[in-house]
């Protein structure tokens, strides 16, 4: 086993351990001790509004698959979809999910049906997890149809995107419906930052479960993220100081090449 492999295993075990530790020591289950994120505050309000006015939420999961390196974005999107369904349990129309990857489309359909069944609301025969296109721009063109629907009152874009995301955000702007958007790809994050009404920057995309009432364990995983953030900051500062003092590549053996 290489040193890097060992470091990787240490990271995984430490992360899971921290998550479980926070879960156990967290006192008050329903009091979330997380900073406010404007995108999720707006999302919660839009869920309430869609339940009140009998309209539908539209969640788009991007065109990234789940077997490639962009799988984290799609999995985060599916987690947010699950929380939205739970939050809007008493709505007339369950949320509609569109995506540009077949696997993610099937998973979104399963998530909608099983979560609805778990909190026994009828989704009826209408399949609400749709594959709208298989290339990035055909996915964007297909999603425009859903955004234009007068039934949709808000759009949530969480997944893997490219330049075509500008179509979705400007269609939301033309329609006058809010667009809450987040992705892991940096160039499309810059486009979302400029054109979405409520952008989710950087890793804010991955904490949707905790902000939408996922429960103690989700908040524990966010706290674990925070702990690792400070470990990384410590390592950077330590490495920079050692580097300055002439120690070449202080941790490269630990963090070096993978194979």
């Amino acid at each position, binding site marked *: 086993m290489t040193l890097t492999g060992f470091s990787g295993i240490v990271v995984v075990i430490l992360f899971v351990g921290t998550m479980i530790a926070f879960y156990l020591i967290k006192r008050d289950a329903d009091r979330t001790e997380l900073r406010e994120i*404007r995108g999720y505050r707006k999302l*919660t309000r839009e869920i*309430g509004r869609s339940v*009140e*006015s009998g309209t539908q939420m539209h969640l788009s999961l991007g065109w990234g698959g789940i077997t490639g390196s962009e799988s984290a974005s799609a999995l985060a999107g599916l987690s947010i979809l699950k929380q939205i369904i739970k939050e809007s349990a008493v709505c007339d129309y369950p949320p509609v999910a569109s995506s540009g990857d077949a696997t993610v489309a099937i998973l979104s359909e399963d998530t909608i049906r099983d979560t609805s069944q778990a909190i026994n609301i009828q989704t009826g025969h209408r399949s609400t997890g749709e594959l709208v296109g298989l290339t990035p721009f055909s996915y964007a063109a297909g999603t425009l149809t859903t955004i234009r629907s007068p039934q949709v009152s808000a759009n949530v874009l969480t997944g893997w995107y490219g330049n075509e995301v500008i179509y979705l955000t400007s269609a939301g702007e033309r329609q006058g419906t809010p667009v809450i958007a987040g992705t892991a*790809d940096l160039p499309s994050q810059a486009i979302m930052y400029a054109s979405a009404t409520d952008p989710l920057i950087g890793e804010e995309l991955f904490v949707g479960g905790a902000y939408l009432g996922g429960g103690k364990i989700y908040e524990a995983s966010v706290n674990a993220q925070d702990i690792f953030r400070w470990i990384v900051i410590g390592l950077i500062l330590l490495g920079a100081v050692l580097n300055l003092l002439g120690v070449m590549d202080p941790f490269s053996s630990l963090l070096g090449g993978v194979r």
Partner: protein
Amino acid sequence: MAELICQMCGKPNPKDQEVCRHCGARLTPLEAAPPEDTPRENAELPSSFEVPVQPDPGEDDDLSWLDELREEDSDEQTGRIIPEPLDDEFEEDEETDWLERIQRLNTEQEEDLSVEDQGSEGDFPSWMTAELGDPGVPESEPAAEEPSEPDLPEWLQVRTDELGLEPSPAEEREQFFGPEQEREPEPGPEPDAVPEPERKPAPEPDQPPLEEPVQEELSDGEERLDRFQETPEAPEGIQTEPADRDELEKPAPPLDEEQDSAAREQEEIPERTSRFPSWASKIQPGQESPQDWEDEDEDIPEDLQFLAGFTAEDEDRVDKKPAELPAEEPPRQPERTVDPFAMEEEEEEELFDDLFEEDLPSWLTSAVDLADQPAEETISPGDLPGWVEAMRPVVEQTDPTGYSDEEEYIENYGPLAGISNILPAEPDIETAPEDDKAQSSMSLSVSKTQRDYAELLEKVIARESKVRAVTEPEALPTQRILRWLITLVLILSLSAVIIFGGGSEQGEAAFQAERFAGATALHEIIGDLDQADPVLVAFDYQPALAGEFHYTASGVIDHLMSRGAYLSFVSTQATGPTLAEYFLQSTQEKHDYTHGLQYLNLGYLPGGGAGLLSFSIAPQTIIPLAFDGSNAWDSPPLEGVESINDFSLILILTEDPTTAKLWVEQVQTASTPPMGMIVSAQAEPLIQPYFQTTPRQVSGYVAGILGGYAYENLSGEPHLAHAAWLPFNTGILITASVIFIGGLANGILTLYRRQRGTEGGDYS
């Protein structure tokens, strides 16, 4: 010693007392004989009996009406008629009814209401005046035209006790001394009361108690009325003004026998006079829209003032269902969204505001709405088909309750009229006897503040069932003109340059070594290649960026081909193989490379990072055949290549920094050949670090059209980048200025709106 309860203030007085010690009202009726010429009706009750509102102990200024009242009483006793100083709104009606005056006093003390809200008595809709027994119109008048069913249907004639009004003394006494039967008859002057209708035997237990409770109520009601009549009748000389002067002048039609009996019947069935509670009197007919009621806000006590403020516009929005909201309504209402999860004060205020809109209990508002509905809107009775008419039996007149003489039920209303033994079309409102008791016990003497709180509670309950449409959030209006302006300027300028400008032949621009260090390094690496060196080229960009990569990569690939290198194309995108063919066909025609000889298309490498890793370890097993199905590894371009390390150069074309990172991290090891990249301009900031690390993970890179232009300058061969140089620079100049001007204008607009304090963008 038995006591006399004063009619006015309800307080007990010694038996021998004539005038109430507390409020000075007469306790014993005057024994004067009614004058011949005024028909009994004149002695009829004052048309609308207003229960004086119990002044709050704290409100001293409200007692002035009592003093006035006392003076009037003394005038009455002396028989003098003092013309009342008329307010302008009563100019045309001479004030004679003391109860009207009290009502007017009530409204004056409350607030100095605007004139149009002060409905004079005449403003009451005809159904109310008819209902209230228009003082001016003699009772008998209705008999002339077929007992004038008041416009109000029977079910609207609500029993007084339903209104939770103050119990009459008889009821109070009943509460204390139990129902009449058990008590011995009350001593006291027997009024020439209307004979009580005999009490009907209690209905058999299995028979549905159809009318019984109503009967009982009626008898109570009658009793109260009789007793009421004992109280001081309309003081002599106080003529209650006719609602309408013409009615007065209309000669009373001669009463014939039949009408007279109908009139008497009319009397036996006491009018269910609806006595309006004091707060209802403020709701003048014709006053529907909340806007008018809002003016009533001033009556609302201070501590409830904050709840006022529900405007008509919100009323419209609440009534309008979302589906009815016009779909194309770009400038939307200001954002005042009610969020059941986390309400802000502004929304809480709005929620309570709504409470003040519906003063009246729902049964009354529907009555008012019915009265206000224009004639054509009321549902016209369907005309029955001829055969049904023919089937209906001819039945003699039954009494309103539908019971013929033989106690058999015959339907009176609707299409089944005349048919016996069927369920009554108009279900009687059954109220269990106890309800009455509960109702009557509820009607305690309450102060004004308590009444307001009761109303508030009533509205909160009524509010629960009402679905309130949530208001739309405010969305900044889309600037369509700005979008069209941008389109026009950009396309016109680029088209003009493309049509008339032509490309830039020579590299006028000075070459910046520092900025294009990546291009320099890549140029050197390709320059070192020999004839037939195998080069792996990955076409990992989206078809959408084909345009940019034609301009950016054409110079580099041209340089490769001019060096005679053998190319092998691979792609981790499904559209990559075809893009590679299209690229060669449209940009490198002059080199005449043939598939299978100088170049080979290995096709699509699925699996992303994992696919790359397995391809880098065992390429032949991962991609056994070429894209066109031919055997790849025996052809000249891949001669002698066993693993990825046997290539002389790996060149990756991608616009996605993640794909670039995958190639670097999954494929590159210490022994892999140099790795060059041709990236889109958007990926440059993230690829640069791989070039700056030592040792370099990326040996050289070209980014965007400018990178391609710089590379073509290095190789001295102008290619597509030079052709696009002028339109590209024009586009950049136009774009920078449009963004600068547009951005500045929007920024200033937002600052200006911030100065004016209106909500603009977000200032977090």
